[in-house]
């Protein structure tokens, strides 16, 4: 019996079942995929093949452990934001994303005049100095593509800066993102 796995990001009912079973995690036992195969009524080979297919299609980024930042001493995080020229945004976004201390890197829309930053890169550190140092390293990389806006663009006389770092002072809510049972 072969399990049809689609090439796209569309999910088959069996694949949805796989995700529902594993979105809270895999058991840490000798043979975790045997447990999963049994639940899905598949062979272990089929279950491993489905896992590989998810990885190839980018649905699963990796099978990994997620540490608690704070328990590892990473108490500081900064959302660095940058106003970079549109024609260089993709190229430099990729470069920033490759820096080892950047955990998330996205291009987002500006909302002038109140929000001029289009590149977002999240950094984490064990001290305030550490995340400041990371911000400087990103700045060095982006030096030539940062936009310096004239005061004419500025909101109510405030000069728009070419970059900033928003540190987080409190978690107000945190829930996991979940695939819903229905459908």
């Amino acid at each position: 019996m072969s399990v049809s796995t689609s090439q796209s990001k569309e999910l088959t009912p069996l694949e949805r079942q796989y995700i529902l079973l594993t979105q809270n995690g895999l058991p840490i036992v000798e043979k975790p995929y045997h447990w999963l195969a049994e639940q899905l009524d598949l062979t272990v080979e089929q279950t491993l093949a489905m896992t590989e297919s998810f990885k190839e299609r980018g649905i699963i980024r990796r099978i990994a452990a997620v540490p608690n930042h704070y328990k590892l001493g990473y108490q500081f995080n900064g959302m660095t934001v940058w106003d970079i020229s549109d024609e260089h945004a993709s190229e430099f976004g990729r470069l920033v994303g490759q820096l080892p201390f950047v955990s998330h890197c996205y291009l987002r829309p500006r909302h002038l005049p109140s929000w001029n930053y289009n590149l977002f890169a999240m950094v984490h550190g064990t001290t305030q100095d550490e995340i400041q140092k990371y911000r400087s390293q990103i700045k060095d990389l982006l030096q030539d593509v940062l936009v310096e806006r004239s005061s004419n663009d500025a909101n109510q006389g405030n000069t728009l800066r070419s970059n900033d770092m928003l540190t987080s002072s409190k978690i107000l809510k945190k829930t996991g993102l979940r695939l819903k049972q229905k459908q």
Partner: protein
Amino acid sequence: MNKTQVVPELSSLERALINVLQHGLPVCEKPFEQVAEQVGSDEQTVISTLNQLLEQKVLTRFGPMYDAACLGGAFTLAALSVPDDKFEQVTEQVNSFEQIAHNYKRDHDYNMWFVIATESQQEIEQVVKAIEAKTGFSVLNVPKLEEFYVGLYLPV
């Protein structure tokens, strides 16, 4: 953030496992056997150590990391600029929406940053409008246009 949180002393095996497993586990029948080889330990010790780290909440989760967008639905990052004296009230108002997945206080004029997760793009727009109506503040909505990297690695 939580000032009372203590950083636990980690053994060299625990450190090695945390570092290796953030990068990812091979897809095979007995993945922990391979991991044990990598860190110079044995399968049973690796399994019991990892289960302990989960129990102690040093690890929050172990398993497949899904691209949330592939699970269906729509997402956006959004922010509000809230005066200090209204911050608590607005936090409650925003958090009361079940579509708010994460919400962080940040030091900036835009001092409240949250992720909206819904079933559809249309619902995102409805939630943005509803938050504006409820709080009286206008929402800065910055959905991702392009993703360059997602992956947290915190070496210990």
